[in-house]
Each structure stands twice: as C-alpha cells, then as structure tokens.
C-alpha cells in the first residue's frame, strides 16, 4: 500500500530507519525516486541483516515531491517448506521516517506490498512512501 509522509518545508533534515526481522536470507535497498523512472540508490543493508540504521536522506526542500521505494528481498529456501506461508506472513518490517513537522512516523509492510514467486519461498517487499510538504487536500 502506497503511503505518504509529511516532510514540511525548509532545511529540516529528514531521516529514515528500516528494521526487518526474519530468519530468511534478506537484503534491503532504498531508492529515492524523482519521478516514476528516475531514481538514485541512497542506501542498502550490510552483510549481517536487512536493517538500515537511522540515516539522513535529505532536507525537506530537497525531498519535496519525491518518493521512497524501499525494497527488501527475503529468501526462505533454507527453511522448512511447511513454514514458508507463515514465515512470509510474519516478516517484521518497520520503516521509520522522522524530521517532519508531525515527528516520527512508523510505516509497516502490508500484504499487498509483498510479491511472492511461484514456489512461495522468495518474497520481494516494496514499500513506497511519498514525501510531501503538506497533507493532501
């Protein structure tokens, strides 16, 4: 589900943190899109996990009108196949944005953010968050 975060205006720094909890092999990329096809990768997780520590992603004025696409790949092929559906359902994912006028906001992944391969053992979670200066009318 596409969501939005109010970033306000000016030079206020906006930060992002990603927390992923799963026993699967997982990795996260964070892309900042200017439009539907123009993007830059601004962060990705390390070797140990799929988390991204709290990091500045730009100021409110720099981010105005852009959106974040936070993509996490989770591979459950090492787990018992009988567990796959439950493991997919119980992936912990939190995307924490802060620095906006309304303070910290926690977004979670929803069922429609997940794409699953035919065998049901690989999940791609795409969380899209619009960065807007004021609440939509």
């Amino acid at each position, binding site marked *: 589900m596409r969501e939005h975060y109010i970033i306000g205006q000016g030079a206020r720094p906006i930060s992002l943190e990603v927390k992923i909890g*799963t*026993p699967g092999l997982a990795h996260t990329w964070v892309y900042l899109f200017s439009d539907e096809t123009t993007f830059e*990768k601004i962060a990705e997780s390390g*070797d140990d996990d799929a988390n991204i520590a709290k990091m500045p992603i730009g100021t409110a004025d720099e981010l105005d009108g852009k959106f974040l696409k936070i993509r996490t790949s989770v591979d459950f092929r*090492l787990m018992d196949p009988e567990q796959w559906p439950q*493991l997919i359902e119980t992936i912990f994912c939190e995307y924490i944005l802060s620095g906006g006028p309304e303070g910290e906001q926690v977004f979670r992944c929803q069922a429609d953010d997940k794409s699953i391969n035919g065998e049901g053992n690989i999940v791609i979670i795409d969380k899209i968050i619009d960065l807007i200066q004021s609440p939509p009318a």
Partner: protein
Amino acid sequence: MKKILISFLAGILVCQAYPQGDIQLEDLQMPASPAFVLLDVAPSSIERPTTIKAFTTSLVNNITETNGIPENYAVDFAPYWFFRHKNLTVMKYWGFNHIGDQYRETPFSQMRYGSLSMASVRSQIPVDTLAELQYVNNIAFGFRTCLFQIRGASAIDELVKLNKKYKDRLKEIADNPLIPGSELANVIAGDEDLLNTINDIRSVLARKPVFAIDLAASGAWSFGNSDFNSISINRYGLWLILSYSQSLNKKEKTIKENYLSLYATTRFLSDHKFLNEEGNISTVQMMDAGGKAELELGRFSIAYEYLARLNLTNSGQQSFRSSGTISYRASEQFLITAAFGKNFGSLNNLISQIGIQWGLTGKNQEVTFD
C-alpha cells in the same frame, strides 16, 4: 522391476522388523513429540499448525465438537514461529551474532525454537484398573528443545562467507527498482549461482553440531467420565541427551558425512499407573543412564550403546542394556538397521533384530539406489 523387488523385500522386513515386541531400536532417541509417548492410547492423527490462527481454529473446533475436552486431539507446534520478531536475522537464527569485530556463537539461542505437544485421548480401560470408571480422558503436555548448541568456529566462518557470497550475487542481479517485485522474485529463484550458494549453506547447516544438549519433558494425566475432580497423574518423564560430534572429513570439504559421535543420555520416568505382576496398580520410578559411541562413514554407521536402568522404587531390580547397531542408509527415506546385544531384564533379553525405517521424511515413498 528393481523398485518392485525392493518394495517387496521392504514389506517382508517391515513385518519382521520387531519380533521381540517391546524392544524398539529408537529407544535411546528423544521423542519428537514427548506428550504422545506417555499416553496409553496413541492419538489417531496429529495436527501441526504453523500459524496461531490454525492452532486456535483447530483447538476451538475440537472443543466445540465434543462440548468439552477433545476426545481424540493431538497437536504439536513451535510457538516461536507464531509471532513476528523484530530482531531476528538469519545469522541469529543460525546461532551466532556479530559482536564487535567478531562473529560469536550464541549457544543458548536455539532454545527458543523448541516445540510444545499436547494430546487428549478418550479411552476405555479395564474396570479393574480404575474402579467404576469405564471411560478415561487422557491428557498430556510436553515440550522439546535444544538447550545448548555449538556449531564450531569453522562452520561459523563458512556461513559468514557463504552469506556474503549470496548477498554479493543478489546485489548483482537484483539492484534495479524498475523490475517489478513479482518478476524479481522469479529471477532470484531461477539464478543458479544463488541456488548453488543456498545448497552450500544447507550442507553446512546439516552438519552435526560439535556439542549439543537436548531436553524433553512431558506429563500425562487422566480423569474419568469428564469429571475433572477425578484427575490424577499417570506418568511424567524427562529426557536429556548430550552429544559431541567430531567430523572426520577434511576441513575444506563442505559436505561432512563422516563423524565420530559420543552421546550421554539420561531418562527419568515416573509411572503412577504401573500394573505389576500381581495385577495391582502401583507407582514405579525408573531412570536410565548411559552412553553411545557411533562411527558414521557416509551412509554406513556402527554404534555401541550401554544403558543402565535403575529402578528407584525397588533397588533390587537394576538392569542394563548393552547392544551394538549397524545401519545403512540407502537413501533419505530408507534405513536398514541391525542390532545385537542384551536388553533390559533377565528373561528374553536377547536383542537380535533387523529393521527398516521407511519414508523417514514422510513425503517420498519411492526408493532409488545410486
């Protein structure tokens, strides 16, 4: 034709597998579902829910059907997996963590993945064992877990390297947000390099831990005619196994299949409904303690085990079991075992049997030989 012949032979051997009745080759093993082994009557089927929703649905359905205590219900589940875990990572799941500049094992971390088992079975019992009660509700609860596990430094190093190899390859093929998620999931699934790395990781995870302690415990109660006030304990038991395994393969070999393993085991059983030779119900407490040494060379293994049985109620009834076992695993689903030696007791105590375990994974009944 070969398969038909093997199936025929298997059928014959299964029929002759345990000619001595109460002697079971798996006696020394820890029960997979401890609650079920203490019941007088085996549940006809066992539910293994993987979600909390499935668990509560099955429980509620069984309670509703019987208007009370389920009459034939058995469930085995690992509650840890019912919930989301914020700090869970693949490395933590494998049993180690990045602390400072080093990866260190977390030996107690496997404990949380333990399983619970519960069973409720209604049975009819002989009237002379429980006066005036014909129907008895048997309920049992049990748990099983790995208390402690050490994989060893080399396994940790390999898992760290393989995890990095997986991630490096993933970054090569998946770092494009314009690929739709469903398409990317299939790209990852079809990538051979990733699959090879997955298989290497699987081989490392399949190795026996250098040291492990497994614990299981269960208790069984009964009460007559759905009258909860008549509840009484039937049995309770505890199993504890310490294992040490030394790989005999070369260090650089990913798949380890040769091991020298040592096991120390103890079991305690308190049976409060023991029917003695005079036909009276009494309480008996027994403890088994012993060990096993096993040499595994690929599909072949040879083992010797010694188990002392201490009757804690009657110190005059001590006994021991001393036996050797030879096994050959023809495939993942097909294990042939021969055992020889002395069983507990002083009469009919010769162990001389050959057995086949068939369909170990429960999914593939077809046997093929290389």
